């Protein structure tokens, strides 16, 4: 099945882009590690204990940035999915899918760190608080996003179906939030994850800011790394298709 074009190299554009991303990932990794070390020092050592919660509150410096970045990741998936549906360009889909993967990981971290924080402070691993429940629902929606990609019969179709799920799933976050708040209003209970309950002073705010920078950098690093991997996978798929050695997902 080897035809005349078999000896050709993959399109230099794809290769060059992947190589460029490779350098980018390396640089980002170094930057993330540096900021992360500073953030860890500030969060675990430098910031003073909180007035009421003592040392326990320090998980807040990871829980809050991770939660924010999870929503940022899904916003990127939403925008990427929308752009993909409009333009049909695979690069938008790669960005959306990569962001969804990282978003699911960060949402998981957010739910887990929230639970760990809630146990000593509110004596419960879980509470059906508005933000918790909305986040849990969003997590489930984006698990569905990843599954529909994985189960699609062919890649382009999976990308399209996933984009629809990502767009619809994100647009309705306000309705979810509002309805869950209304539901909680009818069933009052412990309010978990109240940052408002913490007394944030100067050093803590600075620490939170640096943690947020570190976590955002980590997100960008993972995002670029996954986009690069997807470009390479697609490039390999292209080459295999040209050589006629079967498709790759």
């Amino acid at each position, binding site marked *: 099945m080897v035809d005349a074009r078999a000896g050709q190299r993959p399109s230099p554009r794809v290769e060059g882009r992947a190589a460029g991303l490779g350098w980018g990932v390396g640089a980002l990794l170094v930057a993330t590690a540096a900021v992360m070390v500073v953030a860890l020092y500030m969060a675990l050592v430098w910031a003073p204990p909180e007035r009421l919660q003592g040392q326990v509150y320090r998980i807040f410096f990871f829980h809050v940035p991770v939660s924010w970045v999870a929503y940022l990741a899904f916003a990127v998936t939403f925008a990427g999915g929308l752009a993909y549906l409009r333009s049909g360009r695979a690069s938008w889909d790669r960005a959306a899918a990569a962001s969804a993967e990282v978003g699911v990981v960060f949402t998981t971290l957010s739910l887990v760190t929230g639970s760990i924080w809630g146990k000593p402070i509110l004596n419960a691993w879980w509470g059906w608080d508005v933000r918790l429940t909305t986040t849990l629902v969003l997590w489930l929606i984006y698990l*569905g996003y990843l599954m*529909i990609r994985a189960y*699609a019969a062919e890649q382009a179709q*999976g990308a399209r179906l996933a984009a629809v799920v990502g767009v*619809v*799933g994100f647009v*309705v976050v306000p309705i979810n939030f509002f*309805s*869950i708040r209304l539901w909680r209003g009818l069933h009052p209970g412990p309010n978990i994850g109240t940052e408002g309950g913490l007394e944030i002073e100067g050093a803590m705010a600075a620490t939170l800011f640096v943690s947020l920078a570190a976590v955002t950098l980590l997100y960008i690093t993972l995002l670029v790394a996954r986009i690069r991997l997807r470009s390479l996978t697609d490039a390999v798929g292209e080459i295999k298709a040209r050589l006629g050695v079967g498709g790759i997902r």
Partner: protein
Amino acid sequence: MTAILGKVGAIVWKDVLAELRTKDIVLSVGVFAVLVIIVFNFAFQPGAQGIGAVAPGALWVAVVFAGVLGMNRAFVLEKERGTLPGLLLCPVPREAIFAGKMAASLLFMLLVEAAVVPLFGVFLGLPLFPPALVPIVLLATLGFAAAGTLFSAVAASSRSRELMLPILLLPVLVPVILSAVGASAAVFAGEPFGEYRTWVQVLIGFDVVYLVLSAWVFEYVVQE
């Protein structure tokens, strides 16, 4: 406008005719809904105190689970028989196809609910079908059908169809489930409309958003 409505009507009629011949959806979904209600009753002592508090939840869990079962058929049948391409080749806008499929599913769901809700009242000793429940059931079912039709089309295009639909659909249905349960609980408790107006507003908001959104993205889902 009338022309479009005629085309939507034709698609609805096609589904109704297929259903009349097989009676697949309405029968199996109805029986399943009753089963869920009965199983739910086993979870509680008969005549136990406070069953009224969980009753609306049990009712909507039954309707939603049964509805997911029925929704699976909406596009899986078209896929299995290979009739979806034919439907897509019809000289009608994609929105009309979506509206037709949705209206048919809505019709089947309402039929099932018309039987299941009074039966539910019989089993749990509640009012059989309070008039105030009618708009709630209509609004909740409309939202369910809108989101359900879209995600049924999404799931039907994937490899494990029957598995994917509940996984995709249930999380986005959270507002419908919450508000339907909230509003029905108020109705069963005999509260005035003012007490559950916000729930009805959430239902209307969900319906509008999902009707517009689903009709818009539907064309990307069925694209070949």
